[in-house]
């Protein structure tokens, strides 16, 4: 019992356990839900959210908040599509350009927050409006992209046993592992955790919290732009009105995965788990068959609520 409690003390382990319960329950109800094919699809379908959520995780751990993720994602998507279609650029060059642009945009937001000491909520909310405006000014309509490289990317699959993972899934999983490693043992990761955990101590230690945070906003916007590229690869088109509300989903996924809104605590693996939970809920709804928009929302929200409530109850039980 005490070993169980010790295990449950770790938010990540707790999330895993609750998730496992959910999978077992759902697996018992729907045939074929727990299968390699479903898992493969889940990974590929949620890479966009997964990448965006990684950015949100970094910012939250550093004690900040980024609401511009969805808009930056849309702007990067439509921007890349336009560059490929109208500019005749190679997709990878286009992707590199928009990710660079995203990083610059994030750095600007970070500068406004840290140098002018404005609240992150307002600055990134302004960023949400501005980036969406930029996206709409690139192209109001959705823009379809057809390019041999993209077609090849869309068909490429890595087969591991029964799993078959596409390039987006690989990118997401790879980025997750990279972030997990960077958070745990790179100098930058340690700085981020220090700044988010105790900014005053970090300052006393001779770190520059403001600089670290600016870098974080740049990183977050970079991940959002990457998610926009993933959107183009996944759907074969860019759209200025895509990904609205993505920032809330990304933050929710990070929080479900054990990242604290107060800063200092969080993990990339936990965020991946949070994203997987959302993906899983969508899959369950798919298996349920023809649910209306209303029922889908009630199911998504209800399962999400059930998950966080159950975890909270367990957490309280552990603390006692």
């Amino acid at each position, binding site marked *: 019992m005490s070993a169980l409690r010790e295990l449950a003390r770790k938010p990540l382990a707790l999330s895993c356990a609750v998730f496992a319960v959910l999978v077992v329950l759902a697996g018992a109800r729907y045939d074929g839900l727990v299968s390699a094919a479903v898992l493969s699809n889940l990974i590929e379908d949620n890479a966009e959210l997964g990448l965006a959520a990684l950015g949100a995780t970094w910012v939250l751990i550093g004690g900040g908040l980024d609401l511009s993720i969805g808009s930056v994602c849309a702007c990067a998507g439509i921007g890349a599509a336009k560059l490929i279609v109208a500019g005749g650029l190679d997709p990878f060059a286009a992707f590199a350009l928009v990710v660079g642009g995203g990083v610059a945009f994030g750095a600007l937001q970070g500068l406004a927050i840290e140098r002018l000491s404005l609240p992150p909520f307002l600055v990134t909310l302004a960023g949400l409006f501005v980036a969406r405006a930029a996206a709409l000014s690139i192209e109001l309509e959705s823009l379809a992209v057809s390019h041999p490289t993209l077609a090849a990317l869309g068909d490429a699959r890595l087969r591991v046993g029964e799993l078959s993972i596409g390039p987006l899934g690989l990118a997401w999983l790879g980025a997750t592992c990279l972030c997990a*490693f*960077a958070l745990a*043992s*790179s*100098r930058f990761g*340690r*700085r981020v*955790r*220090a700044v988010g*955990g*105790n900014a*005053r*101590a*970090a*300052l*006393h*230690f*001779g*770190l*520059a919290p403001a600089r670290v945070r600016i870098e974080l906003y740049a990183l977050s916007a970079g991940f959002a732009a990457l998610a926009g590229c993933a959107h183009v690869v996944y759907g074969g088109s860019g759209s200025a009105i895509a990904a609205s509300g993505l920032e809330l989903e990304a933050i929710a996924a990070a929080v479900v995965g054990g990242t604290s809104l107060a800063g*200092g*605590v969080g993990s990339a693996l936990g965020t991946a788990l949070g994203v997987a939970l959302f993906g899983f809920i969508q899959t369950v709804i798919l298996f349920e068959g023809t649910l209306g928009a209303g029922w889908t929302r009630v199911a998504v929200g209800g399962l999400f609520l059930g998950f966080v409530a159950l975890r909270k109850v367990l957490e309280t039980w552990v603390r*006692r």
Partner: protein
Amino acid sequence: MNPLELAGIEKRFPGVVALDGVDLDVRAGEIHALVGQNGAGKSTLAKILTGLERADAGTFSVDGRRVRPRSPAEALALGIGAIHQEVDLVPELSLAENLLLGREPLRWWGSDRRELASRARRALADLGVEVDVRRAAKDVPLGVQQQVCIARALSSDARILIYDEPTASLGSAEVERLFAQMRALRERGLAQVFVAHSLEQVFALADRITVLRDGKRVGTFVARESSPHAIVEAMLGAALGGAPERRASTAGHAWFEARGLARPGVLAPIDFALAPGEVLGVVGLVGSGRTELARALVAADPGVHGERLVDGAPVRVTSPRAAARVGLWLSPEDRKVDGLCLGLSVRENLALGVQRRARFARVSRAEQTELAERWIRALGIAATPEQRVGTLSGGNQQKVILARLLAAEPRLVVLDEPTRGVDVGAKAQLEARIAECAERGLSVLFISSELDEVVRRARRVLVLRDRRAEVLLVDADVAALRRAMAGGETAGTAPHTMVPPGGRDAE
């Protein structure tokens, strides 16, 4: 040429002259104490030394070279390390990471964890500390965290160390350990500046003492040729009256009784009783259950067992709100975290005290202001009613809490470390106010690490050890309390009457 020399340092903040032409020289192999009342400029001077603030005028030299550090990083590069008032480590990082943050050994693929741990272990072993450096900072005792701060400063080759009230959050054993270390570092020839409130500590440690008052240097004294009395007079700028005497014993029947007050796993059952106007002292080392007892009494945390009897009848107390209903109020140990709404004004914080009696009905703004002004006068709080509490000094914040408690017209107040981090002048005022209230029939549970204070104020003292009541001493002296706190040798301390916990006065 001294390692550290300041001359004519000035620092102004909007509307305040914090430092006005202050000189300071610190020799190698010296512990130099910096004392003064709150607001005298000690902290500002320490901040200038450590690069957190920059002086407006004056010269600052290290080893004879003029310097002007603009950040803690630059100060550190000059060999000036800092140990701050509140132990400031990043709670989620490991001790090793905290120790070497920003200077981690790197490999091409990231940081070298093994090298990190071994370097940290070596730095701590240098100070004689054995601890698992992979543990998170939040999981080790405060004393160990403090050692990490010192090791951190030393491992970056600091030759000048600035301690800004380093003992504020330490227990007495940890303080002893810190002092032993500071003496050892003195032998190594380091220059150390020690900003302190406790003159007892200053005289135990310092070679020279610089006194600040109102941003000016009053003088520098050689500790061996001076006395605490002289220093206090220099700090206050006036002759000091005699120390308040202990009051005569109170007669009267116990109106309040706690029976088997306990919180499983945190506090073993404790009994005690209080008469009107009685001050019951509670002492114990950090972690002995002092704070837990204080919080259990007003049911600040869930899961408290035991009975509370008021005027002989049991009362149901399940929350601080319920405790307030029967007249029990707590002044918590950490005033910033548990005691005050720092963003609200003095008036609003005080209104919280009377509001409970008024329920949801309105206490008019005029009444609130009148209340605030009355208590500001009564306790000598240096603030206006509309000033935000977060901007006040520690002593004034503590007075605001005390005023809030007293404004609520309580029957029993629990004061958990009411004088921690409070300067000498304010301390005496606080003590006098507490004594006055007791005279008017208020019962006080007085918890403090400053044993002389406890001995002065309380006839009966409950000694806690290992989260249980060790013994109840009557008319004990400081030495007897120390022995009881350490445990074991309480039996046979002849002149002191021993009463089992829960017993009445032994007259």
